[in-house]
C-alpha cells in the first residue's frame, strides 16, 4: 500500500510534468517582440500611405506582410494585429 508521502510525491511529479517548456522558437520569437513591434510599425506606416495595402492587410495579413517584404511569422502577425486593432 502506498504511503501518504508516496502519493504526495507522485502527485507532485505529475504537476511538474504538467508544465513542459514552450517550444523554443515560440519563446525566442516572444523575446524578440520589440523587434517585431518595430517591423509592425513599418507595416502600419506603409498601410497609412497605401489604401490598397491597408485593405490587403485586413483581408489577408500573411500575403500583405510578404508583399511588404516581411516573413509573416506568428509573432509579427500578432504585433500587426494588435497595432491594427489599436487604430480601429
Amino acid at each position, binding site marked *: 500500500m502506498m504511503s501518504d508521502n508516496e502519493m*504526495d*510525491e507522485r502527485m507532485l511529479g505529475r504537476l*511538474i510534468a504538467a508544465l513542459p*517548456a*514552450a517550444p523554443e522558437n515560440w519563446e525566442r520569437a516572444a523575446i524578440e*517582440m520589440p523587434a517585431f513591434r518595430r517591423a509592425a510599425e513599418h507595416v502600419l506606416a506603409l498601410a497609412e500611405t497605401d489604401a490598397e495595402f491597408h485593405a490587403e492587410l485586413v483581408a489577408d495579413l500573411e500575403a500583405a506582410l510578404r508583399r511588404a517584404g516581411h516573413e509573416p511569422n*506568428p509573432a509579427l502577425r*500578432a*504585433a500587426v494585429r494588435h497595432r491594427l486593432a489599436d487604430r480601429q
Partner: protein
Amino acid sequence: MSAEAEVVVSLVARCRSGDQDAWAQLVRMYSRYVFAICQQGFRLSDADAEDVFQDVFVRVYEHLNDIRDDASMRAWIGQVTRRLCLDRLRAAKRSPVTEDEWEAPDPDDALERVELAMDVDRMMAELSENCAEILDRFFRRDESYAVIGNALSIPAGTIASRISRCLRRLRELLEGRPKSTQPSGET
C-alpha cells in the same frame, strides 16, 4: 508580497525602462504557463496555440505601462490567455463560447491543474539549481537516470533517491514548513 510578485515587480520596472534582458526573463517566467493554458486547458491546435502565445506576449509588452498592479501579473496573463483561447475557439466554431459555458476537456479541470502546476513551478525556483534540474529532466523531459547522471556528473544509482529528496523538499516548501534536514548539497 510573494517571492514571485517581488521578482515580477522588479522585472516590469526594468522592462519599462527598455531593459531587453528583463523582458526575456519575463517571457521565460510565463512561457510555460501560457503554453500550458493553450495546450492543456483549451487543447488548441499547434498553429492556434502559437498565435495565441504570441498575441499574449504582444499584449503584455504593449501594456507594460498600463498594468496597475505589477504583482498580479500572473493573474492578468492567465486572464488574457484564457480570453484569447476562447476567441480562437469561438472563431473556429463560429458560435459564442463564454468562459462559463466552456467545459474543460479534462474532468479534473485542466485549467485548475495548470494553476497548481504553476504554483509548483514557482516553488521549484526556490530549490537548489541541482534539484530543480533533476526534477525538470526526470518529469518534464522524461530522461532516464543514466542520462541525468551523465549530464549532471552524478552517479546514476543515486538519481532515484535524489529525486525523492528533492520532491520531499519541494513538498515542504509548498506546505510552508520550516526547513527540515537538508538533502546533501541539493537545497
